[in-house]
């Protein structure tokens, strides 16, 4: 197989459209609640002094918006994410939401502190805008089906698969693995394997000063063990490309790791954790739940019939 074919086969596997649609619900849902419930305070950054504003590279050609325009962006962003979540005008909604979400958090990160937890969400919104993520579990899909039924063109079809759906999920997989491996690379390049005992993690724990961190930091061996596990987890992220128990075990470890970073360091990577779903056959999970619910309903109906007086 030629290199080009290998490349195409890797990046564009045809996967069920339902899978990418479910991924859309998760990521657009996360982004929606992230913006609506968490990030409203970013509107106030329009008033922060210019001296603190060090725009990220992509924001440098753009003007800094005043508070009125920032509030307008916020409103459009919330509405477009809500539409993307329910799958109403999915593609235009995602094409509006993705750059605005990028701008929104990019503006916040231009005040001197960049976080990485939202990179997967930004990328997810862009790739979902390209992929047929409104092709199932969406208002768009319901509308198109209703129109097809009305026009007599509707008929049951096999599970539709699409290369662009596969591409979107593949980009997410590579991004997630790359993020961890590059984080391990940075630690090894800057400090070397001695990073484990370098005090880097300990200093962050003391600075953030959460109750859990201040409790743990008294035990040097424990902090070093946590640092060793962090480095191991990051350096072995490529295991996510293996299906089955290896992947499952890695995901469980990574989720526990991120719960740990939230509790101990007060650093949230929930967007990254949500993006792990790109590795899974989500539509299979939905089918299993549906089957289980149907069987449960059948059992309930049959026991109700047995209880009826004859």
């Amino acid at each position, binding site marked *: 197989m030629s290199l080009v074919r290998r490349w195409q086969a890797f990046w564009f596997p045809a996967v069920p459209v339902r899978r990418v649609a479910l991924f859309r619900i998760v990521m657009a849902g996360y982004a929606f609640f992230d913006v609506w419930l968490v990030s409203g305070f970013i509107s106030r950054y329009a*008033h922060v002094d210019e001296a603190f504003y060090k725009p*990220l590279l992509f924001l440098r050609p753009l003007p800094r918006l005043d508070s009125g325009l920032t509030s307008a962006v916020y409103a459009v962003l919330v509405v477009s994410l809500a539409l993307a979540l329910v799958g109403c005008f999915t593609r235009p909604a995602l094409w509006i939401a993705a750059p605005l979400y990028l701008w929104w958090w990019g503006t916040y990160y231009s005040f001197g502190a960049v976080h990485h937890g939202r*990179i997967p969400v*930004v990328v997810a919104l862009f790739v979902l805008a390209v992929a047929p993520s409104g092709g199932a579990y969406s208002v768009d899909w319901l509308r*198109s089906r209703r*129109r097809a039924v009305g026009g007599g063109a509707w008929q049951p079809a096999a599970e539709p698969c699409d290369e*662009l759906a596969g591409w979107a999920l593949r980009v997410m997989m590579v991004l997630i693995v790359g993020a961890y491996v590059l984080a391990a*690379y940075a630690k090894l390049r800057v400090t070397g394997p001695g990073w484990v005992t370098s005090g880097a993690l300990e200093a962050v724990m003391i600075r953030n000063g959460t109750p859990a961190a201040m409790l743990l930091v008294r035990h040097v061996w424990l902090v070093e063990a946590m640092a060793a596990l962090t480095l191991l987890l990051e350096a072995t992220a490529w295991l996510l490309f293996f299906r089955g128990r290896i992947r499952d075990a890695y995901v469980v470890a990574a989720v526990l790791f991120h719960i740990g970073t939230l509790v101990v360091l007060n650093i949230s990577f929930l967007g990254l954790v949500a993006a792990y779903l790109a590795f899974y056959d989500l539509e299979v999970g939905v089918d299993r739940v549906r089957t289980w619910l149907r069987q449960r309903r059948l059992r309930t109906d049959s026991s109700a019939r047995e209880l009826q007086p004859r």
Partner: protein
Amino acid sequence: MSKIPSARQQPPHAPQATSRQRGGTGTLPIRGDQGPTVGAPSGTEQPLRPAAHRRRWLIALLSAATAIWLAAQLGAGLAMTIHTWPVAGFPMFSEKRAVADERRIEVRTRSGRGVTVRPGDFGLTALQLLNYQRGIVSDAGMVKPMAAARLGHLAAIWNRQHPRDPAVSMTLTLFVRPLPYGTPGESRHIIRWSAS
């Protein structure tokens, strides 16, 4: 051996609309349409319909965009730069640390009040203000060039928020404690700015 999920068709599960023309997102496949055959020998192909032709171009375009993104992401990751966010490196917490630091900023106002300055006074988070302060004095206690001027800039911003009782002096105190935690010894570095 890698077992990355590959292309496959699932058994029928649910009714699907089949009209591409009427589809809300324009993504529902036409029955029997196997999609593009990117990379297939051109001599064996039937003439492409316009939709299939467009899709083939889209995939080629996405393929190129993916290669560019991958190269940029790899470059940013190896260079460990973060200003290119969201295509950025991940250098967080990678530096060796021999000390833990704590900073405090205080002002003396014209009326003689002593006030501890909070990140919220500037509309910033603690980390954002900390990173600004790192341009004045490093975590290890190294005073940066123009430190007093940068502190004076901070005082000027604070004064804009408090015009009735402005600061006449501002002090940044850095407490540096050796690691591991609990090791005795503490050094103190003080940077001062005064209104002349």
